[in-house]
């Protein structure tokens, strides 16, 4: 069973896989940084922490790396939990 979900809605510590990234929804700079940090279809991700005072930004594991990113950008990343 898979369910479509955006990365910002993914529950904490639930391993998932990137199914699609909406590159057109972000600035060129954000897209480049996202690619440079290893975001790509098929890569495993996991949401780890949210910052205090409002829960933005998020700390997300992508591949073997942890990155900090704002929720608005995480919203453009579609994931599926592969149970």
């Amino acid at each position: 069973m898979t369910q479509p979900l955006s990365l910002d809605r993914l529950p904490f510590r639930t391993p998932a896989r990137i199914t699609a990234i909406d590159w057109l929804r972000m600035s060129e700079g954000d897209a480049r940084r996202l690619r440079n940090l290893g975001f790509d279809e098929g890569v495993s991700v996991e949401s780890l922490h949210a910052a205090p005072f409002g829960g933005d930004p998020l700390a997300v594991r992508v591949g073997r790396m942890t990155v900090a990113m704002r929720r608005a950008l995480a919203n453009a990343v579609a994931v599926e939990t592969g149970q």
Partner: protein
Amino acid sequence: MTTVPLIAVVGNPNAGKSALFNMLTGARQKVGNYPGVTVERKSGRLSLADGRPVELVDLPGAYSLEPSSPDEAVTRDVVIGRQQGERLPDALLIVLDATNLDNHLRFALQLINLGLPTVVALNMVDMAARDGLVIDSARLSEELGVPVIETVAVRRRGLGSLKEALSLAVTAEKRAPVPDEPFAAVQRRARAIADAAVAGDATIHRTSSVIDRIVLNPVAGPFLFALIMFLMFQAVFAWSEAPIGWIEGAITGLQGAVTDAMPDGFIRSLLVDGVLGGVGAVVVFLPQILILFLFILLLEATGYMVRAAFLMDRLMAKVGLSGHAFIPLLSSFACAIPGIMATRTIEDPKHRLTTILIAPLMTCSARLPVYAVIIGAFIPATSVGWGIGLQGLVMFGLYLLGIAGALLAALVLRRTVAKGSHQGFMMEMPKYQVPIPRDVLLGLWQRAAIFLKRAGSIILVSTIVLWALLSFPQPRPGESALDASIAGKIAGGLETVVRPIGFNHEIALALIPAMAAREVAVSALATAYSIEADDEAQAEQSLVERLQGRWTLPTALAFLAWFVFAPQCLSTVAVVRRETNGWKWPAFMLAYLFGLAYLAAGATYWAAIALGL
């Protein structure tokens, strides 16, 4: 002069590149700048296995050949031979973090595609093993087509084999470059190679994930952050007391020795009052500067700095910035120059410009001498309860005033002159590491050298020039030495401008040389009052005692308020000019900060008068 082969050390940020560079070159490093940009150029010499010397250059960490910041642009330009002031490297030494191979291989593949002779250092293999990752480096070498050497920079492991591989590389022929492989293809190839060469299913650095549960916890995280900041500023004052005493003692001793050894006259006065007095007043702050830098270096080396940026992002977003800006701003508490240079990692130009323009509002260490003298003279050393001293509280208030001013300025700037796109906040959070003492000491030594060079050049020259302007021409009988001097005449003009905000003649005088550097204000006041002293008893008074007799409290408070905002530092202006490619923004910065300083000093002065202080 024959040129020795050049090897560029390249890799992702946090791959342990600098640690490896330090391991290879030791302390024999040259720190300079690339022409036109303020990106630091670090280079060092290394003797290869066969005794041949090579030059190693440590390039800024980058994620790919598609640069996201001015910093990464330098890295790309060097490896493709287009960087001004740097020749095309003869070989590349690519540093890979063994625990993060799939991510780091992407950049490595792009670099290997360039066709330069290449050696790969597979760094931190010990940590990968501890994480349960087994890496087949022979397989990796086969897939990449270049030699792969396992290293642990922290323990100097792999040094010998690395030197041997580099000896072969510098004489090797260039391979044919692979033209434009699409990024997505490189991405997938990197993952495929990582999958083939790495066995083990560990997804993340375990220790880091445990530490992050505390450090990024919504309750414990902010508390820990506040504690670290408090400890840092507390240490700057508490730990520096003893070393400051030693430096003061040494300078007084030197002054005494010169006074005894030389006949009274101009040269002796120049040496004792001008050189030793002026430079000494500044060098005593070396301990505080070094303690602050020690904390910043440790926060960076441990990996905490990015976590702090993560925690601060929300607050920074409220004034139109992001967590990215936190790191340069924190460095600016030591000195705005490295702070402004650190903004080159910020991608968005408007965002970066705003950070540059507000960086001088962070209370840098050069303000400490000014604050310390005025607070020492005018704020009583009484307690306000709970063991908190009034003097410390005033100092804390001045820091807060600077921060509040900076946040407010950012808010206004982002809505006016630096209006524009809202860049997101995206940063790699490196795994936590125990800092390598040698690397921290090396960083500290490089900072100390920069500071002492500054004290020895700008500050020395401005102090001597001021001494000369203050000493000539000689006063006629009945005239004060100060009023008769050239500097006194110049200050007379400035005085009419600053009189309404409570400043007197001596302050006007001190503000002129303090344009070179804020801390010069202290030595300038000291020089002014000691030349003015007409008898022995007066000459022996300390600066604090002299100020107490001559300034009113409102004047002293206005002087403090002035220095919270005033951009009195030529080096900062020069760095802003270089960073923004022109005079427009440094001119703007000078205007808005002097405007703020004038308003703040005036408001403080008249409020204090109204309150009857």
